């Protein structure tokens, strides 16, 4: 359950400011590696660092929105993270893209999103 926090945290961080959005969108795997390296370097928690499980890391790096939704990440943070990367950073048309997103999350119903 605490792990949902880690997924929510990286999604909120990427969506939150121009630099992390640009860095993540250009190189998701590199961004996540740096994210986890910052966390490993200190015992002091920070909102620009964290630790993910293998499946969480895969889902974030591969932008597997269905998996992120199914694992109980907060849907508000998920849609804004996804929209920021796909539409704001990579130029997808929101009206078209949101229907693709819907198809990815639809099979998973309404998972709990407690942390």
């Amino acid at each position, binding site marked *: 359950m605490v792990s949902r926090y880690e997924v929510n945290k990286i999604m909120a961080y990427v969506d939150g400011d121009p630099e992390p959005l640009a860095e993540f969108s250009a190189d998701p795997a590199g961004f996540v590696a740096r994210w986890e390296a910052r966390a490993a370097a200190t015992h002091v928690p920070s909102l620009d660092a964290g630790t993910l499980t293998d499946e969480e890391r895969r889902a974030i790096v591969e932008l597997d929105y269905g998996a992120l939704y199914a694992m109980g990440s907060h849907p508000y943070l998920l849609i804004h993270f996804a929209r920021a990367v796909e539409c704001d950073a990579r130029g997808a048309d929101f009206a078209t893209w949101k229907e693709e997103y819907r198809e990815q999350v639809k099979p998973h119903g*309404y998972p709990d999103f407690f942390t």
Partner: protein
Amino acid sequence: MAELVGVFGVPHNPLLWETLRAPYPDDLVRTAENFARFSELLYDSGAETLVMVGSDHFRKFFYDNSPAIIVGKAERYPIGYPNEIRTFGIEPGEVAGDVAISEAILGTKLLPDSFDFGMANEWLLDHAYSIPLSFLTPNHDLAVVPIHTNCNMPPVPAPQRFAQLGDYLRDAIARAPVERKVAIVTTGHLATDLGGPKQFLGGASPDAEFDAEAVGWMQDGALEAAIAGCDFDRLVTAGNVTLQFLNFLTGLAATGGRPATWAEGTASRYAAMSFFHWDLTGDAW
């Protein structure tokens, strides 16, 4: 003594920043009319300060540090997070605070014995506050006291607690030792889904049955029914961000559970837009 002159309930969908502009698209004409009507009612009431009850969206308050209910106490509040400026086109701005009303709510040395509020002396307001302000007071000429309730990061306060907050705010405003006309502006959602399968249905509500029942609570002043009807699972079933409807219980309770003078779930391309108003001026109160 301060005087409560009105209670409002309005939507805060950030997409309105760009879409609710003249000439209005057909499906948003009614939303524009309602915001204009409410703005006029607000100024007609003589309100000088708005006590705003809304829910920040993970920006000021996140999962590492999430208060249940927190009250702003600052001379000024800046507006506009970078992601809102980027995605929604929201313009950065600033609105004046009202420290005297903040203190009337929070206390100065001791918190009230009924609420363990958090306090924020610095607060960048997100669209929960800036969207209502942009359509109600576009010149930012009325002061605000922002209150954040945690409707987004469960566990959230119980529905009864939102009603108690309304009772408390009414009494705290009445006791405030300053001459001031105050309106309470609550903001939340009717049935709304974001990030789930029922988001952006192109005008169809994710749960029209909930919308009708919820507007009815406000029309009838049915506070107890509203509290009973705001079961956590019921709200989430209506749409995964419908928990923010709880803020409207605060508004209803602040009136003592009176029938609204205006209650409408306005159809639009988005989820139904909540417009609730209680006129508390003069003989009406």
